[in-house]
């Protein structure tokens, strides 16, 4: 059975047995080429579910809207880390989710009405091909040899001078229209009132202009320090193609170097930037 057929069968079983009242998966988008999220409430609709290399959305974000209901959900390995993150942060309960994990073939570059055959940059260096948490696994578990440099993009950026980096980000952020799609797509961005939405008092100005754009983009990344699970949902939704993952991954690399920690691998492990351990050293330089 193909991955799609297995997902359909599992979803049907979950809905028929009333273990869940909704399965969140993927269906074909209106361009006939890409995938879009689908909420299945009715077993007869399960035959619309699909899985392929265009299924780019991290559906875990939607669990935040369904905290008190049991939900079936299709997750890729990176998405599965978001489940651990949210359990770790007490946002969702493990027993409210039935996880249909899919061994990930990597996503291809897609655009509206276009599907490429090349893997996305992030998927080319991804080392997590099997979900870290699941109730049912679809596909054969896969081990990937870690590359010599897991952060080639970040290393490249680190080689630049401060002036070059500033010029680079000023140019990138200048395109930002502050639609906040990056935040809305991120499973870790769930503050009940985001700092940019704070109106009373106003924390970040309403102007769509360089200073405010920079404030937004850097604070968004910092807030995910040690929390970003690398699904790249933010970057994929950006309408003006700002390379947000470069910022996220720089922070991830720092946390990895300092604390040997990656978010979402363990639902119990304390987060380095949210927990202070007794034998922890203060300061960065040793």
């Amino acid at each position, binding site marked *: 059975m193909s991955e799609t057929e297995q997902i359909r069968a599992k979803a049907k079983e979950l809905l028929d047995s009333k273990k869940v009242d909704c399965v969140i998966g993927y269906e074909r988008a209106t361009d006939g080429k890409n995938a879009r999220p689908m909420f299945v409430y009715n077993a007869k609709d399960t035959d619309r579910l699909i899985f392929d290399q265009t299924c780019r959305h991290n559906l875990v974000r939607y669990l935040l809207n369904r905290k008190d209901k049991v939900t079936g959900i299709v997750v890729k390995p990176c998405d599965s880390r978001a489940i651990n993150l949210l359990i770790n942060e007490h946002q969702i309960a493990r027993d409210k989710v039935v996880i249909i994990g899919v061994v990930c073939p990597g996503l291809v570059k897609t655009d509206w009405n276009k599907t490429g055959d090349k893997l996305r940059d992030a998927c080319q260096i991804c080392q997590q091909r099997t979900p870290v948490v699941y109730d049912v696994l679809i596909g054969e578990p896969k081990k990937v040899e870690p590359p010599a440099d897991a952060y080639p993009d970040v290393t490249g950026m680190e080689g630049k001078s401060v002036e070059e980096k500033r010029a680079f980000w000023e140019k990138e952020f200048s395109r930002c229209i502050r639609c906040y799609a990056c935040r809305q797509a991120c499973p870790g961005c769930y503050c009940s009132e985001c700092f940019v939405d704070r109106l*009373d*008092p106003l924390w970040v100005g309403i102007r769509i202009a360089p200073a405010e754009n920079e404030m937004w983009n850097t604070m968004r990344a910092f807030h995910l320090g040690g929390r970003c699970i690398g699904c790249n949902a933010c970057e994929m939704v950006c309408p003006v193609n700002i390379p947000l993952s470069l910022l996220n991954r720089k922070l991830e690399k720092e946390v990895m170097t300092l604390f040997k920690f990656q978010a979402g691998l363990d639902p119990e492990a304390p987060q380095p930037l949210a927990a202070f351990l007794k034998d922890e050293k203060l300061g960065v330089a040793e």
Partner: protein
Amino acid sequence: MSNNKNPLLPHLATLQNVIDLTPDVRLFQIDLNDADFKAKFDYKPGQFIFVSAFGTGESPFGLTSVAHRKGPIEVAVRKVGTVTSSLHDLEPGASVGVRGPFGNFFPMDQFRGKNIHIIGGGIGFAPLRPVILTILDNRNDYGDLFILNGARTPSDLVFANEFDTWAAAPKTRLELTVDAKDDNWTGRVALIPAVVKELQLSPANSVAILCGPPIMIKFTLTELKKLGFADEQIVTTLEGKMKCGLGKCARCNVGDKYVCKDGPVFTFKQISGLLEQF
């Protein structure tokens, strides 16, 4: 560029007086700087203006004064957000901005000869004051006047300094109620809908005018309908987040009607015909 040509440019004005009405509500008496604009500035009960706290922004407020008394224009402002906090920081003599007046108004002409029930909760009572003042200043034109002012606590009742005058006016009855009393309160402790029910307000030849938080409006409406009030006999003034006041910024709409332009005054007959909930 003349002020009048730019609908988003406020007219400069000066705070003449600031009066504490409750611990968090202040009455701002505002004098328009431009003599020509001041001479032309006419408004009716129920209309509202935008007041600018320069450096922060502007917000809409229902007018609490009446034009025929020829005094300063007045708004009652509860300190709840950024603009209202900045306004509360201002002292007499400070410059503010005024745009307006905007919106429709209570049809005082149609109310002539009728008994009027005024029911206001909290700061929602403020925009009903012009109706009261219009009736009191033209006492023979209207029937019985019943005023019900309710608030969370006794100190939150707005316009307390005018209660004696209102209560003493001919054919006028004033009732006060609070959700929670303090040591000095000997009056009613009841929610507004319960008072409406208890007093058995009569729908005969009358109009009920409501303003307050949406939850108060909802339950008071239910009681009034039980008493036999028809939808067209019940009038309210709605609040909505708005930026322009001109029916353009598409924020205060309830279905296809704008609170700023088609309202803020609606009868419940009109409201029940709206697509959306307010």
